[in-house]
């Protein structure tokens, strides 16, 4: 059953290449996937979802998919939830329909496969598969300085992937298997020295993929140049692969190694939140600002990982991280989708050239406002629940009799991030939507009914999970 989630987009891709109308085909596949993912979220315990096919004898590589725990379910759900709006948002340049929609589907299929794979080989390979169309789309159909941005993200993520690969291969050789569940069982035998080295490779590799400070400078230009569906899918979904990997591979398999790198991790995550947060404040264009803000928000997720590294038995950090990944994915996808719409109608994303858009386009303003509020952690929207649980997790193992430790200090400094994100998000709202209209901004048309659907889908998810986080948390029990 799970294979269908990967096959639907691939079939649609083949159909598009064979001449089927690109947009309807892609939308049909994405809709089918969304229904299937929702069904999976309800019935994921059922063994019918699992699939395994041995593709190689030595070493034993299986094309195997399954839901080892709720984390995979949530990630698959996130992928499906972002893919449909990504397909529906924006329009391909004339004559490039098959490349545009085909790449979107391929990224989605790759992400789906990576999150559903239970075999280390395919876990890695599917992510690589999704990266290729990402690079191509930015390089060929991107905006602005696209070729430089495409080069940068290719080199960065390529190097990150190679470092990661080294770590994974080392780990697989020590564990003697590629089956991720069995790897975790075998991991207890790995000696501390190897654990430390492997953890370093994994943190560097996965970290680069998630724009861990100081390996973050690919993100803002890449998202600014990327076509909307790619920015939505990469920032919203694919980037989470690195975090997913740290939680799925690094934490259970090299816990002592992760613990050894706790202090550097704490410093780097503050780099994400505070340093990149300040960088975000000074961005003058909305696309760069959103890209930079998504770098900043990764810091909260690394905080959850740092908590787990320090206290592997912490019962809050893991579900908190998964919930926050989901929330961030949905909210950043919404913001990128609407930013693209603003650029298409107002002709610019320069904050100085925009203003007063809420008057001609109230629905656009409302939906963007919801996305912005989600992103700054307003209660009632999903991101807040994730953030507050991450903060609580940092104080979960804190003994008040022993005084405040580095984890708590880092957490308190990280909370300052909620002020920083309010500064840049409210400034963007103020500059784009409020104040008097001038020039072209007065003629911006509001969202049509068809344009509202993808945005409303994402808003509904943010609201549902924000109002009742147990919707997601119950999957992670």
């Amino acid at each position, binding site marked *: 059953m799970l294979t269908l989630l990967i096959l639907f987009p691939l079939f649609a891709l083949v159909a598009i290449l064979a001449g089927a109308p690109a947009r309807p085909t892609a939308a049909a596949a994405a809709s089918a996937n969304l229904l299937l993912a929702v069904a999976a979220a309800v019935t994921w315990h059922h063994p019918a979802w699992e699939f395994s096919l041995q593709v190689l004898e030595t070493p034993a590589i299986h094309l195997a998919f399954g839901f080892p725990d709720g984390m995979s379910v949530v990630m698959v759900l996130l992928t499906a939830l972002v893919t449909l709006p990504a397909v529906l948002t924006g329009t391909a340049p004339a004559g490039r329909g098959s490349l545009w929609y085909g790449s979107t589907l391929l990224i989605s299929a790759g992400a789906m496969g990576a999150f559903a794979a239970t075999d280390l080989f395919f876990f890695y390979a599917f992510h690589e598969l999704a990266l290729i169309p990402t690079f191509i789309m930015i390089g060929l159909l991107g905006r602005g300085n696209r070729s430089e941005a495409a080069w940068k993200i290719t080199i960065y993520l390529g190097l990150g992937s190679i470092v990661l690969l080294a770590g994974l291969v080392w780990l697989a050789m020590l564990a003697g298997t590629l089956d991720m569940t069995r790897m975790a069982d075998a991991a207890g035998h790995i000696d501390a020295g190897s654990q430390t080295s492997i953890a370093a490779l994994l943190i560097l590799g996965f970290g680069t993929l998630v724009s861990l400070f100081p*390996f973050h400078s690919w993100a803002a230009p890449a998202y600014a140049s990327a076509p909307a569906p790619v920015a939505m899918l990469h920032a919203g979904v694919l980037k989470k692969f690195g975090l997913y990997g740290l939680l799925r591979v690094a934490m259970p398999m090299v816990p002592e190694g992760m613990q050894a790198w706790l202090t550097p991790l704490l410093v780097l995550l503050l780099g994400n939140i505070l340093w990149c947060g300040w960088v975000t404040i*000074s961005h003058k264009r909305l696309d760069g600002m959103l890209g930079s803000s998504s770098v900043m928000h990764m810091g909260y997720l690394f905080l959850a990982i740092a908590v787990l590294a320090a206290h592997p038995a912490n019962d809050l950090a893991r579900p908190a991280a998964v919930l926050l990944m989901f929330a961030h994915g949905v909210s950043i996808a919404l913001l990128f989708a609407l930013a693209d719409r603003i650029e298409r109608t107002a002709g610019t994303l320069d904050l100085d050239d925009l203003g007063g858009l*809420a008057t001609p386009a109230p629905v656009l303003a409302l939906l963007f406002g919801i996305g912005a509020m989600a992103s700054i952690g307003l209660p009632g929207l999903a991101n807040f629940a994730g953030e*507050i649980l991450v*903060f609580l997790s940092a104080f979960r193992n804190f003994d008040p009799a022993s005084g405040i430790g580095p984890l708590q200090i880092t957490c*308190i400094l990280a909370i300052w991030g909620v002020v920083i994100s*309010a500064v840049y998000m409210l400034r963007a709202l103020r500059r784009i939507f409020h104040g008097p209209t001038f020039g072209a901004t007065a003629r911006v048309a509001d969202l049509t009914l068809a344009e509202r659907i993808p945005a409303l889908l994402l808003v509904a998810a943010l609201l549902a999970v924000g109002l009742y986080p147990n919707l997601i948390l119950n999957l992670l029990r």
Partner: protein
Amino acid sequence: MNQAWILLFLPLAVAAASLLLPRRTALVPWLATASAAATLVLSLHLVGSTGTASFDWASVGGLHLRVGILLDRLSTGMMVVVTGVGVLVHVFSLAYMRDDAAKARYFTCLQLFMFSMTGIVLASDFIMTFIFWELVGLSSYLLIGHWFEKTSAADAAKKAFLCNRVGDFGFLTGILLLWSITGTLAFSSMDVPTSVSASLVTASLLCIFCGAIGKSAQLPLHVWLPDAMEGPTPVSALIHAATMVAAGVYMLFRLQLSLGAEVFGGLAGDVIAWTGGLTALAAALMAVQQDDIKRVLAYSTLSQLGYMVMAVGLAAGEAGMFHLFTHAWFKALLFLGAGAVIHACHHEQDIWKLGGLMRRMPVTGATFLAGCAALIAVPFTSGFFSKELILDAARGHQPVLFWIAVAVAVLTPFYMTRLVIVAFFGGSRSDAASHAREVGPLMAVPLLVLAVPALIAGNRIAHGFAPAVPERAGEFHLNSLFWISVAALVAGSGAAILLYRGKSRDPLSIPLLRERFYIDRFYDRFIVRHLQDSAAAIVHFLDEWIINGLLVDGCSRAAASFGGLLRRMQSGHLQGHAFAFGLGVLLVIYFTVFF
């Protein structure tokens, strides 16, 4: 209990329905007003009931974050204030916002506010307080920015949100600390174990107090409240005078009830009391030189909130809450009166361009005088009884603070008498004022209704509805405190009468006060422009040139030459490169694992 849940969720349901209604401009105002009236009935019905109920909102591992309702005297009494002022503000707004194109949005936001405020009041759990705390911040942001096309309104909304966020940084930190100290987030079971060091408890209380500093606009985060007057005036009455800004005091008192007043002794209590006292004094001084009718009232609100905060810091939270109760009625009355004036005078807010309104608007004028009497603590009005209790608490604990409070009691009648004389007496000083006519019944009735509690809410007959009543509330003694209060009142009012009678220009000019001690300017120029914007630009520059330029481009140049090699081998396009790269990686994995 079911009624309490309805009380909480009805406004949310109405707000949500308002977003979806067709023909919303006609329906939403009446729907919202009906909802506000229903919540008032429910609140009155709940007075005196107690109990708790909650459900799991987010459960993770062994932690259950709960959303729940705690009914006790404090919460039910506060609900009477919130819904009582709320319904009158809704009715007043029906007339005030009649011609506003976006009145559906306005009433939707008002309902969102009612929901959020109810949540803070009924919260049984600290996380729930925080959730609704942020939501009132949102509704306040939306309502201040109701006329967002106006640059000043849009800026004021943003400023309010950001000031609150700064306070919430501390608030959240404090909640986390308190959670680790007490092991719980529920108000009903909070207890500070003796093993915890006093300094950690103090630190957590002070962090939590930061939240109150933001929401209740205490020094040094007070700057947003005067600017918030950019919002429609009924909003100022409800949110920025009677209810939301008092949430900080309410939250501190709730904490005082759960943890015990003795925890607030020592440094934490001192800091809270002094912050309140200094805010009361500084704001009263600034009010003396304001010319905008709403801004005078805004600074007066700051000053009265300072009184309440000071009372909580002096471990006399009941007195603070009692003042909150009386203040809500008379300050809402004053703001709605100001709204009536502004409405009648075509949005003229400068008191020096008003004048002579008492004759033209007798109902507004008389009710405004009633509110003013309560605010300046004329004996036997509501404000008199509650202010006495605060002065009394200060005298027992901190003599210096007591004299600061007395100074505020002199300044309050001074600036209020100035306001009344200049705006309501003498001759009209503009066309707008000379053509003013009394407002219609939808606006006059709320004023008349509010005048009643403004005058009598301090007396015993109203105590049943008050969220907290100190032991000696409503008593009257001819003691030294009484004579000090009367002397302060006479001195303040007398000086203002002498100084301002018959004047058409302000005879006083104190730039330091007019410029509000230059605090706003300092924030704008130094904190925002230099500390934040310049620093952010520097960080961005370093990020671009050091991290990206040297570290990364160095690596990428090395990689690019490798890429160049590939490019020559392949088609020379990015596409080809990417495919080669992907294939290569797959091959590398395959061979590493295979051999």
